């Protein structure tokens, strides 16, 4: 689905990632860990075409990222649900319209999809919050709303960058269970986090591969976390 071949990425002359080869297989569950500033967010951005590698090649759904125009990247993103730690919304639109935004921009906002929206909001525990504006939500609600927005198009891949960074332990477990459930439904999931406790909790419930970015390189962390 997403392949990185000998990928390097530099910014301002500083190498952030170097010689990374990796393949995200369909239905897999990955954790990406490493210290703050190690390049986890950069790695995810490379995976969904927000950044282009300075060396090597990235293939997103069998298309080389370097050859994809901005429209092709936009179409690819409709198959990749992205959740950021600092969830950004359109603050002037109510929450239900924000969650339905991927449907709106892709011209798929049909009545059936709206029914799915209500179901999805219920699934992430945001029933009754549809009319609220994003600034009125708590950190946990924003994280769940971002997850719902990432899932509304039923994407093949879910990339989550520190999805539990702004929430308490109970909420992080709840979000984790949602992501594991999605993986069991066949979705490919990759979570970037430095929360090792979260990874240990997940490994008890799902077969997850843990990767670590260290010294600009991607390594398999194995089970010895």
């Amino acid at each position, binding site marked *: 689905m997403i392949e990185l071949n000998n990928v390097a990425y530099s910014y301002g002359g500083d190498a952030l990632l170097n010689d990374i080869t990796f393949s995200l297989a369909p239905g897999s569950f990955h954790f990406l860990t490493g210290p703050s500033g190690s390049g986890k967010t950069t790695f995810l951005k490379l995976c969904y075409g927000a950044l282009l590698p300075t060396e090597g090649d990235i293939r997103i759904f069998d298309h080389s990222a370097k050859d994809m125009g901005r429209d092709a990247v936009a179409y690819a993103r409709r198959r990749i649900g992205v959740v950021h730690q600092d969830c950004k919304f359109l603050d002037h639109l109510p929450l239900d319209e924000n969650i339905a935004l991927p449907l709106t*921009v892709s011209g798929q906002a049909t009545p059936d999809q709206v029914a799915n929206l209500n179901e999805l909001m219920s699934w992430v525990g945001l029933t009754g919050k549809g009319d609220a504006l994003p600034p009125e939500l708590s950190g946990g609600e924003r994280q769940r709303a971002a997850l719902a927005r990432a899932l509304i198009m039923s994407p093949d891949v879910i990339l989550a960058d520190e999805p539990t960074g702004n929430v308490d332990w109970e909420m992080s477990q709840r979000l984790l269970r949602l992501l594991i459930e999605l993986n069991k439904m066949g979705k490919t999931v990759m979570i970037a986090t430095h929360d090792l406790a979260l990874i240990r909790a997940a490994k008890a419930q799902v077969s997850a591969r843990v990767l670590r970015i260290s010294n600009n390189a991607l390594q398999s962390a194995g089970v010895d976390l």
Partner: protein
Amino acid sequence: MKRFLEFLSPLLRVDAGADRVVPPSGFTVRLTVFTAAAMAFLTVFALALSLASGRLAQTWGDDLARSSTIRISAPAGQMAAQTEAALKVLTQTPGVESARALTTEEQKALLEPWFGPGLPIESLPVPQLIDVAETSEGFDSDGLRLRLQAEAPGAVLDEHNRWRRPLVAAAGRLKLLGWVSILLITATTAAMVTLAANASLAANAQVIEVLRLVGATDGYIASAFVRRYTVRVLTGAAVGTVAGLLAILLMPGSNDAGGFLTGLRFEGWHWFWPAFVPPLAAVVAFAATQGAARRVLGELA
């Protein structure tokens, strides 16, 4: 054709969702609508000025080009004889279609604007005027002057050229100035919309980031801004055009005494010209916003 339709697609695609993704900005909306209205108002006036000048230039150019006047200044006892001699010369001159001496009443009417009604013209030493109409070939003015000098020494030929040419030139310049003004107003509208759209796009960088994150294409994002500005400018220009037309209608009617100033209005089918102002403004806004959106989206990529 396909590329043209693709270019126009942001305007033709009515998408309530796309219209809502850009946050409303009340002050900017009012400012854009007001500026478009003011520009349209000025365009209507520039159009009226240009068309009126065109009419004036044509009148002075065509109607007066083929007419001349002979003024006979002679002692009262010789006036009739010299007038008759001049008319005889004129009937024998090739290129003269007709010639007739103005009646006392006609001469009185010519002087009335300056001296008022009831002027005792009979008791004043007023020159006799002869109106001469030329054929399309025209006459030899130098030859005619020589013959008049011999037959009617008090006759002076005035071909109107001395005052007509600068007036026609001035009217032509005014007409050109009107069109240049319209071009400048159009360019200013484009610059204003570009600045407003640039500011709006820059202020909405986070909106653009979110839209891109959820899979919006550049065309979709641009269309949200393009439609908004095009509709604003179209609305403002429509209001400004109607206001401009009302102002023109309220101007005094055209008459001979008022001359050029009272002729500053539309005539006949020229009243349809202002109808093109709002669509023109919308096209300018569309192109300016489209250009600004593509450029800013390219920079934010």
